[in-house]
């Protein structure tokens, strides 16, 4: 006999199930509840917190709740996009875990009827030996899937800290394109329709916590009967993607739902719940890869590359012909009826029958502690007030694992397939051409160190950082997606940090008026009591006004003015790479969102018509601060232009290495300086003229004494790490 504990439910939750059902669930039903009331499927800890995120906006077509958010790009196109995590599977089996993460988010996009056009990967690795192996496998896996299915990986971010040793993070963003007149999701299934399950035959893959049941069903436990690793098959994924998009394109399906976590259980239950219909699913009709799979295994299997479509009877033949044409395996596994239940049968025998309102909607949510707002108060750690500059820090910061050049990773991803990539992973922001006039800017970030002490400050910083990146292109942000990664929410500290992170994201998104249209929460990233830093992966999609000519991020000419747009009134080093190098732990500053909002307006206006604003190049300031932003803007192939900066000696270290997001380095044609001054003044935004580009290949600072960093040395640090220089 299975008990509620075997499927991961608490005593209280079990009581609630009995109360709502007005009976005890049978074994299979208990399994269904175990899956759908898990943290992963029900968001029981985070949903009340996520409610704080703004969802509304002018361009929102579909907010949270579907397989992915959808925003309007143009009068012809919508964009579907979302971040998904695959952290734990990637730790267990890096290659397949990461590969199936990519496959999973792509199916979410496809299930919205959108054709994926871009991927971005957000990775956090530990620093021990095992982490090196994990990194190799994870990068390999992401490439294996994305390259083979033929979706370009156009941007991403990588960070390192020992807090990720046993919990690496693998979050993947996918973006898809959908014609404006297409509308499909999980919520349109109508009584009378037939449920088709297509794609891979179902095996015993990734049946979480199901080993007990499996062994019960089989009497004896053998190696083969234990849950097995999910293997990604991008080839089947490609066929499935094309078939699904063809079905949607021809208007054959009334509902589409991919199979992800908890497999058929969550896809059928969620489809029924969203469409407000009943479903009868016959497990004997599900194609199985192995003999004698139990109903429980069939319902809980996480075999990849499967899709559920609901097809009205009069469209059935055309649909089946189409699926066959792709040589995709499929079966009819059930039908849609009036009602509000999920009924699982095997031929004539009813195995489970539960109201979807209870199964999907009934999971008790963890209430937000009433004193949460006081708990989220600013956690300030003391900072040094004056530090003399050590020039070595320039190399160390630029060569820090979080700032270093990434081509060894992104070279392994196809970034040019699809012929949309105007700017790929060698830039901070990806620029994609949609057609001759429409374009998209995509940026991701996950500045984890910023949230290490004060997670609210980190959440704010992450959103500001993402929006600052697309603002360099004068691109109008359409929506945000967030991946929340945190520790065990049952522990007060981990919960508070997660809550703070979400609160920070919510605050920034509200003030800056960009909606969050979807995302993901991954909790329990904790091993032996060591939790990761609460880590927000933020993705933004923005409408690019002139995708064929991005605003440059590198300078190749001397005699340009260099200005800081919106430098902070008081620079603080909290949470910076430099602090880590110096062995200091500080809290990231809470940013002035109102000031940032005005600056974003100024930059957006000017960058939309960069020629008329004399804007030769621009970079958003983030990890590594102004120093890294400037150094990277000089890393042209010829590296023959340098800069000379005049900065006050007493605040030099703060000015160069603070990482306060929402400031930019601008390279302006001298004649246009006054135009910028006027634009900034009109909005009360600070513009600080700090120097000029030169034809000498180095960074020179005149502030008190003169400090010089030759570009060639900086390049080595950037390529090979900060400890390389002179050693």
């Amino acid at each position: 006999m299975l008990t509620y504990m075997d499927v991961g439910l608490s005593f209280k939750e079990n009581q609630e199930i009995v109360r709502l059902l007005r009976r005890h669930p049978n074994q299979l039903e208990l399994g269904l509840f175990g899956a759908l009331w898990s943290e992963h499927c029900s968001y029981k800890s985070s949903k009340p917190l996520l409610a704080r995120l703004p969802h509304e906006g002018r361009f929102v077509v579909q907010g949270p709740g579907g397989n992915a958010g959808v925003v309007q790009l143009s009068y012809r196109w919508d964009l579907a996009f979302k971040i998904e995590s695959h952290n734990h599977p990637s730790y267990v089996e890096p290659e397949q875990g990461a590969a199936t993460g990519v496959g999973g988010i792509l199916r979410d996009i496809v299930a919205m009827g959108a054709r994926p056009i871009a991927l971005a990967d957000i990775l956090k690795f530990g620093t021990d030996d095992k982490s090196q192996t994990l990194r190799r496998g994870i990068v390999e896996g992401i490439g294996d899937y994305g390259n083979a299915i033929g979706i370009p990986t156009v941007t991403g971010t990588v960070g390192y800290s020992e807090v990720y040793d046993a919990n690496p993070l693998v979050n993947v963003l996918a973006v898809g394109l959908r014609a404006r007149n297409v509308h499909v999701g999980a919520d349109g299934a109508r009584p009378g329709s037939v449920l088709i399950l297509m794609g891979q035959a179902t095996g015993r893959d990734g049946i979480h916590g199901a080993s007990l049941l499996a062994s019960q069903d089989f009497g004896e436990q053998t190696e083969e009967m234990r849950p097995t690793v999910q293997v990604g098959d991008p080839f089947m994924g490609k066929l499935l993607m094309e078939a699904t998009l063809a079905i949607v394109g021809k208007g054959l399906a009334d509902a589409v739902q991919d199979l992800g976590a908890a497999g058929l259980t969550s896809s059928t239950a969620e489809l029924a719940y969203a469409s407000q219909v009943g479903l009868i699913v016959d497990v004997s009709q599900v194609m199985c890869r192995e003999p004698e799979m139990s109903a429980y295994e069939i319902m809980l299997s996480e075999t990849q590359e499967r899709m559920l479509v609901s097809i009205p009877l009069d469209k059935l033949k055309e649909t089946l012909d189409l699926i066959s044409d792709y040589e995709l395996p499929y079966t009819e596994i059930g039908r849609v009826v009036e009602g509000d239940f999920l009924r699982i049968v095997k031929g004539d025998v009813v195995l489970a029958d539960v109201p979807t309102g209870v199964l999907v909607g009934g999971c008790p949510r963890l209430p937000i502690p009433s004193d949460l707002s006081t708990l989220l108060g600013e956690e300030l750690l003391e900072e040094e007030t004056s530090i003399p500059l050590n020039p070595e820090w320039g190399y160390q910061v630029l060569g820090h694992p979080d700032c270093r050049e990434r081509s060894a990773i992104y070279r392994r991803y196809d970034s040019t397939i699809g012929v949309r990539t105007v700017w790929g992973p060698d830039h901070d922001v990806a620029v994609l051409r949609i057609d001759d006039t429409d374009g998209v800017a995509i940026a991701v970030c996950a500045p984890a160190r910023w949230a290490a002490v004060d997670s609210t400050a980190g959440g704010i910083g992450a959103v500001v950082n993402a929006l600052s990146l697309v603002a360099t292109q004068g691109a109008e942000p359409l929506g945000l997606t967030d991946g929340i990664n945190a520790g065990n929410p049952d522990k007060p500290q981990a919960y508070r940090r997660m809550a703070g992170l979400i609160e920070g994201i919510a605050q920034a998104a509200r003030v800056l008026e960009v909606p969050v249209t979807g995302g993901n929460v991954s909790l329990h990233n904790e091993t032996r009591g060591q939790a990761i830093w609460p880590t927000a992966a933020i993705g933004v999609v923005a409408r690019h006004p002139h995708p064929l000519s991005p605003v440059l991020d590198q300078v190749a000419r001397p005699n340009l003015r260099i200005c800081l747009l919106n430098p902070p009134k008081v620079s603080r080093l909290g949470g910076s790479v430099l602090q880590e190098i110096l062995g200091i732990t500080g809290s990231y500053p809470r940013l002035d969102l109102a000031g940032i909002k005005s600056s974003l307006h100024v930059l957006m206006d000017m960058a939309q018509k960069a020629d008329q604003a004399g804007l030769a190049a621009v970079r958003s300031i983030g990890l590594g601060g102004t120093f890294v932003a400037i150094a990277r803007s000089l890393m042209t192939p010829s590296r023959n232009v340098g800069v000379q900066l005049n900065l006050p000696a007493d605040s030099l270290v703060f000015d160069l290495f603070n990482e306060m997001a929402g400031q930019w380095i601008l390279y302006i044609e001298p004649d246009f300086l006054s135009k910028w001054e006027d634009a900034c003044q009109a909005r009360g935004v600070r513009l600080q003229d700090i120097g000029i580009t030169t034809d000498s290949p180095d960074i020179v600072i005149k502030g008190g004494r003169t400090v010089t960093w030759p570009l060639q040395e900086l390049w080595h640090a950037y390529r090979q790490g900060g400890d390389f220089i002179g050693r």
Partner: protein
Amino acid sequence: MTRTYQLTFLVGLKSGILDPAGQATRNVLQHMEYAVQDVRIGKWIRVAIQADNAEHALALGQEMGQRLLSNPVMESFEVTVKAL
């Protein structure tokens, strides 16, 4: 004194784990009208190694198989030894 042995590893996916390459190859063989029911694909690795004797070589083989040559999460392996 040591001598050279040849270890042959057969590494394959554990049963129950999806083998997409085998599946695709099976489909093509069927299209070519071979009466094929099932195809599984794995790799062999042949290692020439110095060891004291055959047992010693085999013990090293077991160790290498676990530590490097197979992925214990998904694969199993067999190793055989032959004197060269």
